[in-house]
């Protein structure tokens, strides 16, 4: 009768199964797919059409400047906003309780979410860049070095967005209000971080607030990948600040991971 309990499967194996599940579920929910893919592309269509011939400081076209900002925003929405809302919802409706009952290692759950965020962000960036390049003739990063900058900024930005999404899902709100809370934070950060407006022309206090959060660094990093090098003189600091960008994003990832590891809960009450 007493069978020797065999060791439960490693977290990585469950994480792989969850990655597959999250992707299947994501693509079976048309509203979510359309919103995630459409928002940055739609914003690009609107703003690049309205300000088709505008230029910003440094001889850069507005649409080029905007592409950097909206690419960064897309990454933030697919990571921070999507996870912040989704995880609170799953905690609220008992889906996380089911995983707890199965003894699921939290890291396996996060791996599934991370895979889904990375996959959707990648597809979203590809569609955005295709529209920008072929519908609005916006120039792409000029060489491998600039593409590499684009890649590391995107990955660090996405990771910081993910851990902050997990962290914000822990705020004591009802699952239903999660989308309002999280979307409001995301929206304000977009205005403060130089997505719609040229960052250097924002009031100093707005820039100071934005500098605390990842999105400002993500947009600045994206500008360093998409804009001509001379445009850095139009930045507030007169440079792209790659060191600072990496440091701030990594700091958020480390702090976020610590918060999540200490405070992650499967249930909203005990």
């Amino acid at each position, binding site marked *: 009768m007493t069978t020797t309990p065999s060791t439960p499967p490693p977290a990585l194996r469950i994480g792989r199964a969850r990655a597959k*599940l999250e992707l299947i579920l994501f693509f079976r929910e048309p509203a979510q797919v359309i919103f995630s893919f459409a928002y940055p592309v739609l914003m690009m269509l609107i703003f690049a059409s309205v300000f088709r011939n505008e230029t910003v400081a440094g001889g850069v076209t507005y649409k080029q400047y905007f592409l950097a900002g909206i690419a960064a925003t897309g990454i933030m929405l697919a990571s921070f906003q999507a996870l912040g809302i989704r995880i609170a919802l799953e905690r609220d409706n008992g889906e996380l*309780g089911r995983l707890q009952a199965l003894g699921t290692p939290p890291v396996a759950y996060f791996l599934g979410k991370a895979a889904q965020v990375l996959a959707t962000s990648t597809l979203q960036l590809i569609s955005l860049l295709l529209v920008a390049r072929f519908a609005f003739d916006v120039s792409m990063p000029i060489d491998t070095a600039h593409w590499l900058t684009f890649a590391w900024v995107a990955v660090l930005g996405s990771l910081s967005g993910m851990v902050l999404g997990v962290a914000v899902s822990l705020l004591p709100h009802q699952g239903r209000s999660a989308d309002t809370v999280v979307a409001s934070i995301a929206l304000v950060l977009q205005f403060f971080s130089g997505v719609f407006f040229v960052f250097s022309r924002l009031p100093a206090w707005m820039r100071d607030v934005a500098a605390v959060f990842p999105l400002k660094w993500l947009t600045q990093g994206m500008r360093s990948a998409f804009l001509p090098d001379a445009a850095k003189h139009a930045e507030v600091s007169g440079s792209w600040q790659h060191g600072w960008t990496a440091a701030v994003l990594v700091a958020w990832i480390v702090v976020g991971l610590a918060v999540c590891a200490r405070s992650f809960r499967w249930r909203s009450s*005990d």
Partner: protein
Amino acid sequence: MDAAIVVRGLGKSYAGQAVVDDVELTIERGECFALLGPNGAGKTTTVEILEGFRHRDAGEVTVLGIDPARGDRNWRAQVGVVGQSVGAPLDLSVREMLDHFAAYHAQPRSTDDLLTAVGLTDAARTRIPNLSGGQRRRLDVALGVQGRPEVLFLDEPTTGLDPAARRQFWALITNLRAAGTTILLTTHYLDEAAHLADRVAVIARGRLLDVATPDALGRTLRLAVTVRWTDEGGRHEVSTRTPTATVREILASVPTGEVPDLAVYRPSLEDVYLAMLEHTE
């Protein structure tokens, strides 16, 4: 061998209000045990403490020899949970769902065996949102036993099911029990507890009122038998532990013919249960 579940002096309160009050239980391995009580009696809180989901304020609890508050993955692998709310229905087919959750277990039962066991073979390709309530509960049970647990918790498994679906569900539980799984189920249906369980604990307002086999439940209350009849003085109703003596007296007063409306009632399990609950009001 140790009992599967041992509960001593369990207490839990919310905002100063005791919802579980000094509960004592011992559930043997292989036993099917029902926690019976009305809504808000403390059934779910008790079970969620045993499942390791809630903290207790007082008492000692072990499930398979381990305190659930400290249960690790190895312990969880031996404990199956079918809760009341297990998430919004995922947009997966029944088979996809079972195949996915197989990855969480060291030695999962095969999906085909599970489908057969819970009677969902014909619905294997149906998406979960399109299942009936009864089919969903059976899928929940399939997921609860997928990892071959030694102990299975079923929290109000048949609430909201129609009578036919409940009967099918009972057959499923009976089979699991026959396979040696220790089962703790909560229910507010007396017939369900009586049909499925080896022993029943009646709980109301967080306190255990009785723990007994279904037949012996409320034995002292059941000793009182009601005798009714009518004579010139009108209708009479007497509650007595010696109904035969009462009937003899009546017959002596009516030497010939029929005694109008003569009836002897032994209280049903339902009467006993309701009487027990009334005592706590």
